[in-house]
């Protein structure tokens, strides 16, 4: 599992995030009215997971570790 809710309420995406991560991420983000996601240690993100981020538009803590993800960062709020 690469999606984790930290104690401070921030959701952390780390390492390789496969499509299976999409559902738990959706649950975490739904539960928080002002969600925040930390993706600094994230290496790859499955499109299914990215879709959840695009819809939920959480506050993103970055930049992520991977070049390609940094290119995607523009689609998400800082």
């Amino acid at each position, binding site marked *: 599992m690469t999606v984790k809710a930290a104690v401070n309420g921030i959701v952390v995406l780390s390492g390789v995030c496969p*499509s299976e991560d*999409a*559902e738990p*991420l*959706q649950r975490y*983000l*739904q539960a928080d009215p002002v969600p925040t996601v930390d993706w600094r240690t994230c290496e*790859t*993100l*499955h*499109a*299914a*997971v*990215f*879709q*959840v981020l*695009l*819809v*939920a538009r959480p506050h993103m803590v970055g930049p992520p570790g991977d070049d*390609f993800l940094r*290119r*995607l960062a523009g*689609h998400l709020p800082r």
Partner: protein
Amino acid sequence: MNEFLEQFVIECREQVEQATADLLALEKSPSNIERLDSAFRAFHSLKGGAGIVDFDAMAEAVHGAEDGLSYARKGTIAISTTLIGDCLACLDQVIQWVDEIARRGDLPRDASKQAAAIVARFSRGDGVAAGADPRPQVEQSVGWVTSILAEHPDAAREARCALRYTPSADCFFSQEDPLARIARLPGLLTIDVSPVHPWPQLCDLDPFQCNLVLVALSSASETEIHKALADVLDRCHIEALEETVRRPSSSLSLDARSLLEAQLGLLESTVNDDFAGKVASAGVVVANVFLAQGDSGLAVPIEEATAQSLAEGQTAPLAHAIKAILFEEAAKPGAPLAFGTEHDTAARALRIDARRVDSLVDLTTELTVAKNAIGHVVALAQNGEEGLEQLLKQRFAVLDRLIGELQQGVLALRVLPLRHVFQRFPRLLRDIAAGLDKSVNLVTEGAETEADKAIVEMLFEPLLHVVRNAIDHGIEDKAGRLALGKPAVATLKLRGYREGENVVIEIADDGQGINVERVRQVAIDRGVATAEALAAMSESQVTALIFEPGFSTAQSVTDLSGRGVGMDVVRTIIVRMGGTVGIESRPGAGTAVRFTLPFSVMLTRIMVVSAAGQKFGIPLDAVVETLRVGPDAIARVGAAQAIVLRNQTVPVIDLREALNLHGESDRRRDAILVVANVDGVSSALQVDVIGERFDAMLKPLEGLLSGTPGLAGSTLLGDGSILLILDLTELCR
């Protein structure tokens, strides 16, 4: 080209032929479900084949047409002329690609763009889009390229390719990760992600339904991108961003090319005359060529180059500019080709009926038995056995029969039905008729008549030319026909039949016929014949003048014919194949052009004669009779000799003298004459001995001997020596 591709090319041509025939039949009777199914199957096979050999662009294009046909099968859309036209356009494209594959082993570089154009035909408005096509209509949003380029100006500078990928909604279930795919793209510069449909609320989002459109710019080439996206190409739209300036699509005409080349020659000539005048006039001519072609875009750089040349006092800038256009035009692939060009070269490979091959295999078995039987005779001869003559004679008879059969069998392999060339015409006629106010119904007869493969393959061009002429000049327009009380739809008949050893192909129209008076006038105007010569000619002889070089009755140069290639080309090709051309015209009722061609170009019956101890062959078809006459029968007429034969004076040509032979003669008292008929004139050849007769495959003379006057070719004699075949036309002249 590997064997696999060769097969693919053959199959493609066959499928395209099949599909074309089906589509044309379907256009005539849209309710013909069998034809529709057959066309659909042909498209389906084409797509499958293209998929196997990894020609994705081709698979994509054919897939588009297949979709269109599948809606027609379901009844979602009607079978319209537009649909048929689009499918035919797809087949045209496929054939162009197949030609390219046959030449270079690969699709042209811009294939994906051409494929997209084909696909677009099937996804535009008329019902196809309204059908159940779940695929994204990527072509609708042309603006996406512009917008991504505008949003990422830095990336745009390096970008060579823009692509738009719309994954299927359920792609996540098939292990597809669209983001990872784009991340792996070679030379990725930038990526934009947007939803296909507006995003729902987070609580309503199904995270496993993909709702993304990915647009990216890459610095990699179109081919590399194609490779990377190979398995999702049907969901991608790839746009190459190379040169911004696109050349106008119209190719230079032959005339334009020759004009350009002439100007180039003028510029490069070292004759030191008025430099400025030379450059200026060349510049003006070239610019005018482009203006006349409608390529005003090309005229501008030429004018600039002219100015530069004049300023620098050198011809180089203008010469370079002209060369650049000439060569680029030459190198440019894929432009729609005119009829009768390289595009029409027939398939080199040939499919052969398995039964024919089987019968050849059987023959070889029999030949082996015959060979063994001769081995037995050899053994007997070695043992000093007497009276083998009878046995040898028998064996020879067997071998003679078998080899005759073998020859027949091998020749039969080279035989093709005329259908192969006839079947291309319904399609061409459709195109031609679409461009003119003429409606033509094509009737083909005797398509199963067989002829030598070489002949069938070479027939297309002359046939096309005659057909084109018939439609363009022979057949009146609809109004004209109605006024004359003819049916509005003209009939063009393409007919093939065997006549003895010949194959006859007839192209007959029911148009206005040939205006003999006009032919006379034009013949005089263009110096094809003098007024005196014309006065002595019969009407049919005058009509036949249209086959003379330099003759063309076209009053205006149209798209269809009159490209400066006259009917003389038709005659040249037919004569080269060993045939003759005839024309018959009835004023107001139509014209019929007839090609008479030998059935086989290979076998010629030869008679061996000898003169001064040397043997020569004479083609037997020219020989009328052989005579033995007393020496008094030949009379001297001036420097020549002649003989009176059935009240006709026939010139006698002594072969020894004609060929300047000095060998020993075994001429007896009586003269031996071979009377030959060449071009309707009889001549008698005086020879020493008349020998055997046999069928031979004539080989044209090669190397030093090629072009030797009086010799038509060579073949081998039974003893292995070479027999030269005389060209009687040359000798009897």
